[in-house]
Structures are given as structure tokens and as C-alpha cells.
């Protein structure tokens, strides 16, 4: 489990074209297209062998993502993609694990798994395409919907205080946290690239507009629509948790960029350490011998 070698057959570099999978099912203008294009671009740049790429998703519009990437992919149950990815990441250090999720999947039904994958610092990248609405089920209130948002489950406007994903991720102990906006593809590419390069649990929260059910939600952060796309101040220390929390507290549209980037051992590395410790104690014994020893103790 600690060392896995697999054969490779792709000797020449691949292009974005070869990464194209199924035709996306998203509506025209959906912000998620921009994230898919960015992902292709980054993989092409990094030339991660295709058989080592795995995209994992739960349920929702954004979570259809793996179908659109011609590499290994898993479409798991609603909200549990991070937990599934934990099983993949811990057993397969050779794989490049990316989880694609939405606000409902990651922050509502999957909230618990997000918290624990973050605190355990499981090596993976999580991209949350946050549109502040349930789109696949046609406009219900999401955990990030603003108060007053009118949906089919809140006809007179949402009354529930929304989640602030950045505050939540900081508190949970994620070691890389960034925020971006799908209308700013170069910015998305920059922070996603850093996230993929981070050794630990990295999250990119991307505001990704649902043109169908919550159009204009993020205009306030879109310079082309007269909004303000304010970058994280240059002087912000990305290892300063309290500073990151202050950035997260800013009112909408808030800041964009890397809020937090700290180094903490990953669970992957810690578990590998436990394995190495155990193995150094037992020397060269093979499984049959070790197991026989246990049974001899029961005799």
C-alpha cells in the first residue's frame, strides 16, 4: 500500500483533447464549464499520466464532472465523495485524487466528511463549485443561499443563516484554502494549480453561477458586470489562521485568492510512518509467518 508501481503505456505527452470525455450536461453559460476547461489545462501542463488521474464526485450538477474527463472517474453517492476519496487516497499514494463537489454536496449532506477529511489532512484536492442553489433538482435553497433567496422551498425567501464555507474550512483544519470565481478563469487556474501542488487537503471554493436558477448571483464579484473582484491583500500571511479568518468574515463579495496554506503532516504520511515503524520491528517476516505467530499466541 505504501509503494505501488503500475505500468505506463503513454510515452508521448497528451493534449487537452485526449482528456475530453462525455459531452457536459450543464446548461449553456454554467460556471462549471470554466472549471472543467481549467482542469484540462492544468492536467495538460502537469502531464500527470492519465491512468493515474481520478476524479471523484458525489451528486449534483457539478458532480457530473467525472463523466466529462477521459480518465478514471467515480460517481459516488450524495455527499460522501470526500470519504470515498479518503479510501482511494490512503491506499493509492500513486494516484492524483481530485474531488468535484457543489455547495449542497460538500457543505450540506457531506458537511461531516468535509470537516474530517480536512482535520485529518488527507491528500486530495477538493473543488467546490458553489452556486448557492440546488440546480439539479431545479431551485431549492442551498446551505449557502443568502437570506431572502426565493426558491421552491422558500417561496417568500430563505430565512436560514447561510454557511460561510471559508470560515468553516479554516475551523476544520484544511491546510490549503482558496476562493475564486468561475468568471475569472486565469484566477481559477492559478489557485487550482497551487491546490493540486499542495501536499495535503486542499480546497478551492469557486463561485460558479447557475444561469438557470440563480442568475447574477455573483455579479457583485464580476468586474465585467460592475462588481469588485478584490484579491487577497499581498501582505496577508497565508500561514496566519486568524488573518485568514478575518478575510473570510468580509461581506460579499469578499476576497479572492489563497486564504490559508500551512504545512501539516498528511494522514497518508502518518499512516505510512506507522507502517514503516511496524515493519521495522518485524523485519523480513512474511504475512503467513506473522499471522502464524499471532495464532501461536492464542494456542
Amino acid at each position, binding site marked *: 500500500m505504501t509503494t505501488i508501481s503500475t505500468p505506463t503505456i503513454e510515452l508521448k505527452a497528451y493534449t487537452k483533447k485526449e482528456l475530453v470525455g462525455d459531452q457536459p450536461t450543464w446548461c449553456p453559460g454554467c460556471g462549471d464549464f470554466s472549471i472543467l476547461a481549467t482542469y484540462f489545462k492544468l492536467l495538460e501542463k502537469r502531464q500527470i499520466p492519465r491512468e493515474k488521474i481520478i476524479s471523484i464526485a458525489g451528486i449534483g450538477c457539478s458532480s457530473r464532472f467525472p463523466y466529462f474527463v477521459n480518465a478514471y472517474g*467515480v*460517481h*459516488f*453517492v450524495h455527499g460522501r465523495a470526500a470519504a470515498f476519496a479518503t479510501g482511494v487516497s490512503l491506499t493509492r499514494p500513486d494516484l492524483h485524487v481530485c474531488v468535484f463537489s457543489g455547495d449542497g454536496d460538500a457543505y450540506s449532506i457531506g458537511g461531516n466528511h468535509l470537516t474530517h477529511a480536512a482535520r485529518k489532512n488527507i491528500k486530495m484536492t477538493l473543488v467546490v463549485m458553489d452556486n448557492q442553489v440546488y440546480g439539479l433538482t431545479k431551485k431549492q435553497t442551498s446551505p449557502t443561499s443568502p437570506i431572502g433567496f426565493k426558491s421552491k422551498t422558500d417561496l417568500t425567501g430563505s430565512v436560514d443563516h447561510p454557511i460561510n464555507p471559508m470560515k468553516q474550512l479554516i475551523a476544520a483544519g484544511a491546510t490549503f484554502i482558496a476562493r475564486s470565481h468561475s468568471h475569472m478563469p486565469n484566477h481559477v487556474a492559478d489557485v487550482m494549480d497551487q491546490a493540486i501542488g499542495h501536499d495535503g487537503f486542499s480546497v478551492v471554493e469557486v463561485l460558479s453561477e447557475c444561469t438557470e436558477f440563480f442568475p447574477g448571483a455573483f455579479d457583485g464579484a464580476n468586474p465585467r458586470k460592475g462588481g469588485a473582484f478584490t484579491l487577497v491583500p499581498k501582505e496577508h500571511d497565508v500561514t496566519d489562521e486568524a488573518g485568514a479568518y478575518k478575510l473570510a468574515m468580509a461581506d460579499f463579495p469578499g476576497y479572492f485568492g489563497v486564504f490559508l496554506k500551512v504545512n501539516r503532516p498528511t494522514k497518508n504520511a502518518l499512516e505510512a510512518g506507522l*507502517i514503516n515503524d511496524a515493519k521495522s520491528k518485524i523485519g523480513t517476516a512474511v504475512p503467513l509467518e506473522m499471522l502464524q505467530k499471532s495464532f501461536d499466541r492464542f494456542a
Partner: protein
Amino acid sequence: MTEKTSGSTGVGGITAAPNKQTIQDVVIRFAGNSQDGIQSIGGLLARLAGRTEKDVMTYMTIPATISGGPSIFQVRLGTGDVLSAGDEVDILVAFYQHSYKDNIQTLRKGGILLYDSDNVQPDPNDKTYRTVGVPITSRTVEAIGGTAKDKGKNMFVLGLVARTFDLDMPKLEAMLQAGYGRKGEDVIRNILGAFHGGYAYDIGKLMETFEFRPQADRAGKKKVVTDGNQAIAYGAIAAGVRFGAAYPITPWTSVMEILRAELPKYGGMFVQAEDEIAAVAMACGASYAGHTALTGTSGPGLSLKSEAIGWAVMAEIPLVVVDVQRGGPATGLPTNVEQSDLNIARSGSHGDAPRIVIAPGSVEDCFYTTVEAVKLAREYSCPVILLSDQALATRVEAWDMPDLKKHVTDISPTFEPRGPNFKPYENTPDGIPHHAAPGTPMVDGKYPIVTGLEHDEYGHPASRPSNHAMMVAKRRRKLQMLSLKLPPPEMYGPPEGNVLLLGWGSSRGPICEAVDRARANGEEVSAIHLRYLLPLQAGIQEIMQSFNHILVVELNDRGVYGYGQLGGIMRAMYCDPRIRGINKTDGLPFKVREILDQLHQRLPAVNTAGMD
């Protein structure tokens, strides 16, 4: 105490005159407080049973009805197959007055109350049992050297028991040395002092002593002594499992504790997940990634895992789910036994979600069914649910040392390139998929998706009506193929007769013993044990045809329509009105007498063999 060879039950035991008697087995209950270390007497007796050349079999239970201050355990020692914990106690060892009062009702008529005369005053008017008073506390203090501390009473009692039953002294001493030697010279000196004090006490003056009848065919076989959860944990390691994830829940937890400690030695790991759902999700992830994984739980957790188990059915991913059943529903009875998760194990996911369900019938079987569960999960690429229960989890049994060479398997993934035109879900006659673990190169550059959506042969979402029908049939067909390969059910007793008892899981022992007793009484009773609950083994119907009455014995409710969970399945399967149930829901394992009482209640006529 039973004399199996004579065929009589509960009568061949203790008589008034002190002498030495040869017996088949004995049930002893030790009752004290938790600080008295009486559980360790049980552990030592169980381990002695595994080692001694007299081949004493042990069956230790920690009755779940008592917790907190008072501590008890019950051990059945004997030669031959000790099938159950024993219905009634032959000897009650009472350390305190409350131990005596709370447990005296379990002592059989004519049994022996062995009490600490320093602390216990038995009712002089109760003549239903015999009393033997030994000043356990003062003699222990004396034996250890007048420290006025009574720590070590457990060892004194162990010595008494060793003397009474002519147990193997050198081996017990060696075990005490091995077990306590590390704690320092003073400790081991006190322990051995107390132990020898008990052994030296002339118990033969007060009551008869015993020796166990040797069992020829048992001699020389190496034994191991474990509880059911240990057998599951080490079975998983033998089968090659190197990743697991779970959430602590009684009575499953000790399996994950063992695996957490052991797996790193084997290059693996066991993860404590944030919740039951995450645990099964992690196991699905590792299995998908090529390392067939195990998760485990008890009833409430199985409810939570149901959705992801359905995903593994749909995505056709191997997965082993251990359910150590307890009383339900809801939080239910966390430390009691029940066989009431059969329905959820068989069908506890939405949609048509066929999976394999198997159940061990003994502690030994916990090892073998776990090995088999892993094998089946991989062979049929689907979830396998292993239904153990609280009684098996906490019971200590001596069983034959397994031939590990036969069972230790390397199941690490391989990555030979696949394709072109690789179809993970090809609609083959046996329906079995052949997944490629991520990392496997695809020669045509087209990579597969694994999904919980209904999909085509390539794994891509496909909701066409004909496709869904085809794929549902494919997933079901795998189990039909398996059912053809399963061995016929295990038969206990002659293959024809008047009454057939049909059981599953941990009730196997009491059921078999009920058959023995009924047959000794001239009743034509046999039993079959179902190891596979989904799919069912072939040949059940043929066996049933050779009997007049079929009684399904299980630890669950008779239900709205009068049949237990397996009983209901049997009725639906075979449309046979002769199928009825013997059920109970008191949270305790079946006593042999309870099975026979219900049998006689329901079938008064079976007292006469063959008469119907």
C-alpha cells in the same frame, strides 16, 4: 453436568458421597465484583482448555445482563463438542452475599454452591442445592503471607477449581508465569502463592472431585482460543484485507481495535472514520482502488451504511461488511444478542440490490466465513454481509488451529493494460464484471467510469428501459450462479425423520444440542444449519421433504404474520405450510431447553417418534 454417552441429561452429575467421578462436562459460574479479576480466571481456563492434552473444550460467556460492580462469567468445560453455554449452572462460585443472591436462581437443582464462607451466608432452609463453604478470603490472605489484602482470591479459586477437576497444574503454572511474569517478582509470587493455596485446600473432604472423560479423537490436535471478533479480525488478515474503515459501535468495536493495531505490520491500515457512512464510503473507495476493503458495524450502523452498500451493488464493487448483531431496532440492546438484522442484511438498500449474506455458526466459523466473505466479494464483485452477533463476539471458544497456509492470500491489485474496447460491465453469461483498478493503462486511451447511476457496459449513464432491465438481471444473475456452486446445507442428525430444525448463525450450537437431547429421548429430530442466507443453498427443499415438521429456530420476533425473519423467507421460497418458527426475543442466546420446550408446545405429538 451431562453424561453424553449415557444419553441422559442433567442427571448424571453430582451425588452426595465424596469421591472422584468421571464426567463429560460441567458448567461453572463465577460471581464476584469486577475488581476481583474473575474474568481472568475465565481467560485462563479457556486457554488451558486449548492447551491441555485432556482436550477440555471451553465455552465462556460473559452474560450481558449484568454490568457495573458485579461481575460474572460462565464457563463450560468438557470433552467432546461443547456446543452451547449450558442451560443451567452445575457449580456456582459466589464471592459475596449479593453474588450468591443474584445468581442462585441459575444453579440447577442438586447443584453445588461453592461460597466464600468469610463473606457469604447461604439460606440454611433452601435444600434445592448443596452448599460447600470455603474461607476463600482468609485463606487467600494466609497463602499470600498475611498482608491482609484479599487480592488474589481469583487465583485461590482457580487453584480450587484445578484441584476439583484435576486440571493440568504444570500448564496452568506456566500460563500464570507467562501472563503475569512481566509484572514483577512480587506479583507473580503472590499469584502463585494464592493459586497453590487454593490447590492445596483439601476440597475433597467437603465434596467429590471430578475428572473429564478423555476424548480419543480430539487428542493431539492443536487448539487456539479466541472470541468471535478476534476470529473475524484475523480471518480478514488471512484473506488478504489490508484496508478497512469503521466507526466504534458495540459489540463490533474490538474487531476494529485489533485491525487498527495489526494491519500496519502487514503494510495496511484501518481507519477510524467520522461516522458509519464515511466508513463504508472509505471502504468502497479502497475497494474500487484495488484493495478489497472491510467495514464493520452493528445494527444501527448497518442502517446508515445501506445507501452505500446499494452503491457497491450498482457499481459492482467488492466490499465486506461485518454486522455484529445486537438487539434492535434503534439503539435497542447494545450488549445483548439478537438475530434480527437478517432482513436488512438481505435487502437493506433501496431498489433491487442483490448482495451476498453469510453467517458464522461458531467462533471458529467466524474465521472461516470471514475468509470466505472476502473471497466471494472479489469473485462476484459485490458486497458481502457477514452476520455475526453479540454472543459470538464475546464468547471464547477453543478451536482447531487453522491451516494458515491454505488461507493466507495476497489480493493486492494488478495493473496489466486493458482494452481496446474495455467494458467494465460487459453483459456476460455469469454477469461477473472485471474491473480495472485506477492505474491500469487503457490501450485505446478510453478510461472507465464507475457510477451509482444505471449505466451501460462501459459504465456511462444510461437510463434506457431495456438497459436497466438488462443490468438488473446481470447483477441478480451473479447470485444465481453462486447459488448453484454452494454446498448443500450442513445436516445434523439423520437426513429423514419427524422434525427438522432449521437455523442460522450462532444458534447452531444449541440447536445441535437440542437434536442430541431429543434423539436421546427417542424423538426423531434433525437439524440443518444455513451458512448462506443470500443466496440460499440448493437442496433445502429436498431435505425438508423427508420430514413431517419444519421449525425455523431464530433469535427474532415471530412477526406480524407469525414467522421469524428466516422463517418468512422460507415460507415465501417454498410455499410450504409446514414451516413454522421457534423464536425468542429476550436478548439472550437460546438455551437447549427453550428450543425443546417450544418444540414440544408446538408439536405435542412428536414426543412419540414418527407419530404425527
